[in-house]
């Protein structure tokens, strides 16, 4: 059981001398590269921003299990099937690990899950889209995991200890997912006509959500400045997007994949940056607020599966509390 620390709930408010003293000591620690641990003093907004970020991250792992899990029963070889179950299991495990990290900041898992299924809490934009073919699973495992690693590697060096440690382990496993995803994409890209078409079709559909994955451009992102000041985030959304494009777009082109024509992707040799037409950020916001093509369906699947598992959680909680229902009188009479 996680114990919640409420030490942050002091009477001091921003502006009070006590608060300001603690804040400057806190910021000095962060600029020295110290990690913040659960029992430490932290500003209210630091805690809230971290809970928000970790919660969204955990939800994304849990919702990300759905589009990929959909294809486990259809995986086309024993090797792929085993790898896909292992991968989706990892994602669920990451969700568990992250909910635990968020719990150290005072938010219980059950509350986070309730907020997810009620639509109050967000999850990554990419999981608001359907996985329509086997090739989608390959694209998710390669390119979306690649985009996620760019983000998570950066966050792993952030200032909050429990989140950073969880992310280090997560990145370690994600590296395997990336290899698995790349391998699957290579099989399709070098396969039969049908396989190559499937893959290109998937890339066509996923490129927009992938370009949006790291969040609104720096001009529009409202949280970035505060997050960077407190060492939660170390690089901006656009910097992460550039890193992703620099690393993976050439690999995609090498596999013979084409970026859909509505995207004007152009590499500037001099600055080593990719120029692209800016995604529609109002569309991104619309999607992450729960209006994507399968947002309602995802949450309904989660809600139903949560509801159907209620009896298990209740029984386990009762068992943990030492409760027992009496044995029925005939329990010992049914076998001679």
């Amino acid at each position, binding site marked *: 059981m996680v114990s919640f620390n409420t030490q942050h709930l002091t009477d001091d408010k921003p502006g009070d001398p006590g608060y300001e003293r603690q804040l400057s000591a806190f910021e000095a620690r962060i600029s020295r590269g110290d990690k913040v641990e659960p029992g430490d003093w932290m500003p209210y907004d630091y805690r809230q921003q971290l809970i928000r970020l970790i919660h969204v991250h955990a939800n994304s792992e*849990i919702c990300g*299990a*759905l*589009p*990929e*899990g*959909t294809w*486990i*029963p*259809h995986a*086309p*070889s*024993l090797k792929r*099937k*085993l790898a896909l*179950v*292992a991968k*989706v*299991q990892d*994602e*669920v*495990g990451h*969700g*568990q690990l992250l*909910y635990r990290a968020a719990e150290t900041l005072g938010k219980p898992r059950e509350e986070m899950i309730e907020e997810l299924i009620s639509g109050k809490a967000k999850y990554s934009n990419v999981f608001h889209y*359907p*996985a*329509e073919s*086997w090739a989608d699973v390959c694209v998710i495992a390669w390119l979306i995991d690649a985009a996620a690693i760019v983000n998570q590697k950066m966050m792993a060096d952030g200032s909050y200890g429990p989140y950073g440690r969880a992310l280090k382990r997560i990145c370690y496993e994600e590296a395997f997912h990336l290899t698995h995803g790349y391998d699957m994409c290579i*099989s*399709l890209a070098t*396969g*039969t006509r*049908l*396989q190559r078409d499937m893959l290109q079709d998937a890339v066509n559909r996923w490129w927009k959500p992938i370009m949006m994955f790291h969040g609104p451009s720096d001009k529009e992102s409202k949280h970035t400045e505060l997050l960077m000041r407190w060492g939660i985030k170390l690089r901006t959304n656009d910097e992460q997007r550039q890193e992703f494009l620099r690393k993976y777009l050439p690999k995609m082109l090498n596999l013979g994949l084409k970026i859909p024509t509505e995207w004007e992707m152009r590499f500037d040799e001099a600055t080593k940056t990719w120029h692209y037409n800016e995604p529609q950020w109002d569309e991104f916001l619309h999607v992450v607020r729960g209006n994507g*093509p*399968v947002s309602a*369906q995802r949450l*309904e*699947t989660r809600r139903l*599966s949560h509801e*159907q*598992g*209620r*009896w*298990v959680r209740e*029984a*386990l909680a*009762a*068992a943990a509390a030492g*409760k*027992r*229902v009496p*044995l*029925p009188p*005939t*329990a*010992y009479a*049914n*076998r001679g």
Partner: protein
Amino acid sequence: MNPAIIDLLYRLADDGLIIGHRNSEWTGLGPILEEDIAFSSVAQDKMGHALAIYNLLHELGEPAPDQLAFFRDAAEFRNCSLVALECFSETDAASTPSLRNNPTRDRLVSHGDWSLALVRQFFFSEADSVRFNALANSTFEPLAILVRKFRGEIKYHTLHGRTMMRRLPAATLEGRSRIQKAVDTLWPHALGLFEPTRYDKQLSDAGICPGESVLCEQWRSEVEPILRETGVHIPTTAAPVYGGRAGKHLTEMVSLLSDMQKVARMDPDAKW
């Protein structure tokens, strides 16, 4: 002797593949995250065991593992009915957006009954435990070697199954009633795990595998006390469901294979 061994290996491998497939349908949908992870892990172990045994079959001249899993029809599979039973029944797809390849699980999952999945896994791991303990001393050495490796994993499957089966029906009335219902539904199929085959005597005389009736008795002596301990009644009049070992399957097996094989069969020339 060869046909008897081949038949035994098919039974073992097909059971493992099919229960692994069924358990993996819960990945991402488990009742709690920890159980989701545990079930996925058991699923991988069982599919891994199946793959190892298919490889052994391939060494004995049978087709390659993927060929066996993805390009055989139901009548050629030798698994029992228990492992193929469906634990989900899904809502009408008409109420949800239609998807290009319409993968079954992206439809809404309704009436997903985890008690069936859990009790099935409990019955199955106990059977695995009894069977593989016997096979570890099999005179057919290549199988004995494999089985000795599997046993380490099976120990965790039984530990998991026993823990849940002891907790859930003992702690709440709802838990007990759900587990009881699942036991009532699955018991005849569980007995079908030990469907006699025409090779039983031959295999047992040669010290390769004890007869199914012997294994069934051992299984009952493990399983029944655990059920009784938590007030779960053991069905007394249920007749075993047989047929799977002879390739006579319920309709669930046909739809399972159609799900499992559909991508693999999209393009016979493809390597995935």
